[in-house]
């Protein structure tokens, strides 16, 4: 069996907001019977422009049902501008995580939400532009979708891409092409890192703390979480940043390397070259 979290199982067993809305303000459908999962998401807006009702219908496995269910809870109360910022990672995180091979369920949720918002704004039912180039013909995944998923989730391999959007998981003919897309984005990423940081040289203490927090959340934690580890910011005193490893990182024999080559290097590059990173309890 899959290693589903209790939250996934709860939303699978007791899905919230199942069904249809009589006169919805937006409807989005993604997936198909042939692909093995599909989701129709609809919402209704209140007078204040916020989503007051969201309903879903899903054909799919336990994690597809759970992802759809939690997504409806996440969007209710949000404006369309707020809702469209929801990423697939946030959906997965809200469920306490999904098995790697099931991440595509969270992507399906995000896609359905986008399609529904697009439908509200344009009246169109399909998101995809006809001139978009399809890379994976088995599951109908376009180059743009693959690039976006690689960027948003900091993916580094073809298997990752397959787990997140199914591309490459059918006949396998497109795997070389996906490899090239992955390599392209990875090169993009390293170039960005090599470029001099645009951070202002003189930061106020408050700015520095905020920037350090942001870098850890955006750049460092996702990388560690992908290996089931995590890091917490404990204290910042001048240029001395104290952290604590969590999950698989705690007690990992490579954590010293992680501290030095990942966290410290990143903070020096993006915040200030004087920064030193120490692990809580070690000097």
């Amino acid at each position, binding site marked *: 069996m899959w290693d589903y979290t209790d939250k996934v199982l709860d939303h699978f067993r007791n899905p919230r907001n199942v069904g249809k809305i009589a006169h919805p303000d937006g409807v989005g459908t993604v997936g198909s019977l042939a692909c093995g999962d599909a*989701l129709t998401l609809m919402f209704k807006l209140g007078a204040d422009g916020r989503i007051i009702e969201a309903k879903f219908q899903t054909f799919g496995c336990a994690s*597809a049902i759970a992802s759809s269910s939690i997504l409806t809870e996440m969007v209710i109360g949000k404006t369309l501008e707020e809702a469209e910022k929801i990423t697939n990672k946030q959906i997965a995180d809200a469920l306490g995580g999904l098995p790697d*091979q099931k991440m595509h369920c969270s992507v399906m949720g995000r896609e359905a939400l986008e399609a529904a918002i697009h439908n509200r704004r344009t009246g169109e039912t399909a998101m995809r532009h006809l001139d978009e180039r399809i890379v994976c013909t088995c599951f109908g995944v376009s180059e743009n979708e693959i690039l976006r998923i690689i960027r948003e989730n900091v993916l580094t391999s073809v298997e990752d891409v397959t787990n997140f959007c199914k591309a490459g998981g059918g006949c396998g003919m497109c795997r070389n092409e996906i490899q090239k897309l992955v390599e392209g984005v990875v090169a993009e990423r390293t170039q960005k890192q090599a470029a001099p940081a645009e951070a202002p040289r003189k930061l106020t203490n408050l700015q520095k703390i905020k920037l350090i927090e942001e870098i850890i959340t955006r750049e460092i934690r996702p990388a560690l979480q992908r290996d089931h580890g995590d890091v917490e910011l404990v204290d910042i005193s001048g240029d001395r940043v104290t952290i604590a490893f969590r999950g698989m990182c705690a007690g990992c024999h490579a954590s010293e390397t992680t501290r030095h080559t990942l966290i410290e290097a990143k903070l020096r590059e993006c915040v200030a070259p004087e920064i030193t990173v120490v692990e809580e309890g070690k000097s």
Partner: protein
Amino acid sequence: MNPLVYLDNNATTCVAPEVRDAMLPFLNDLWGNPSSMHAFGGRVMRHVEEARDKIAALIHADPSEIIFTSCGTESNNAAIYGVAEILGPGAKLITSRVEHPAVLGPCRHFREHGYTVVELPVDGVGQVDLAALREALLGGHSLVSLMWANNETGTIFPIAEIAALVKSVGGIFHTDAVQAVGKLPIDVSRIPLDLLSLSGHKIHAPKGIGALYVRRGTRLKTYMIGGHQENGRRGGTENVPYIVGLGKAAELAVASRAEETTRVGALRDRLEAGLLATCPDARVNGDTRNRLPNTLNISFEFIEGEAILYHMSDLGICASSGSACSSGSLEPSHVIRAMGVPFTAVHGSIRFSLSRYTTAADIDTVLERLPGIVTKLRAMSPFVK
């Protein structure tokens, strides 16, 4: 807690208490090496040979034609590797699209080493295309590996006819009988097959033991190279407790085979009729006229198999599915796809497989609870209007 309703016996079976009891002495006092030149070790050899006799009796073979292996997968690998190496590159390996990965995998491996591999198509009920087999057999020396009965659908291939066909052109015939042994009468003295694979844990022995039948005179290159065990045909110190367990399981299978076809078959038929009567848009996958008596593969349209399995599991019901999500891959079962099952039904296929330990109450539980699960999932499916 719901009581366990175990209907996944094509995946694995419970160890029969008699089998467990027969094994225990060999985990306690009788732990010697059967090859040893002392009475303490040597005395366990007799028990290994008795087990061999019992397995031979189950399929009407000569005991010298039985090689113990670690599992069905090893038996299949040993047969295909062993014959392919003798035939040499350029030879033809003929199999079918619905074989177990332990047969398809080794055949595809040899495709990369100069062999021609033919994967025969099947029809809508999963029956192999015999005309395509006849055509594939033309010209060249071949190894044919076709399963006796399919693990997912229970469809039984006409093995006697296939064996005769293969032998009429001088080919070598291997059958993966892992699902057939114990459930169907098997008599290798009447069917001219050369090699047959069987597995312990499908017939109430533990996991980790199997056997390969090799007809006397069949040339076979040794797959597991090591000591002189099994007359040099399979190196490795004999797994004595498990071999004894497999022997006991074979003995029990002989005694209970009639029950498999009558009582178990009747339970399966009741399950099938009941589900078809209570669940609309359901279809049976497989050859209902030539099918293992214990197997039912049924598709519920517009819903997905993993979701059905998880809901059943909450009620203590164990079965399996050919859906993509439950396989860990993104593609649904290769067997269901090869049969051309309509795509509305591919992802909602559920396999129930019974055993002689299945009770009428087990079947009642499924008939009572499954229709509600199907209704619940259909109510949230965007494809049900």
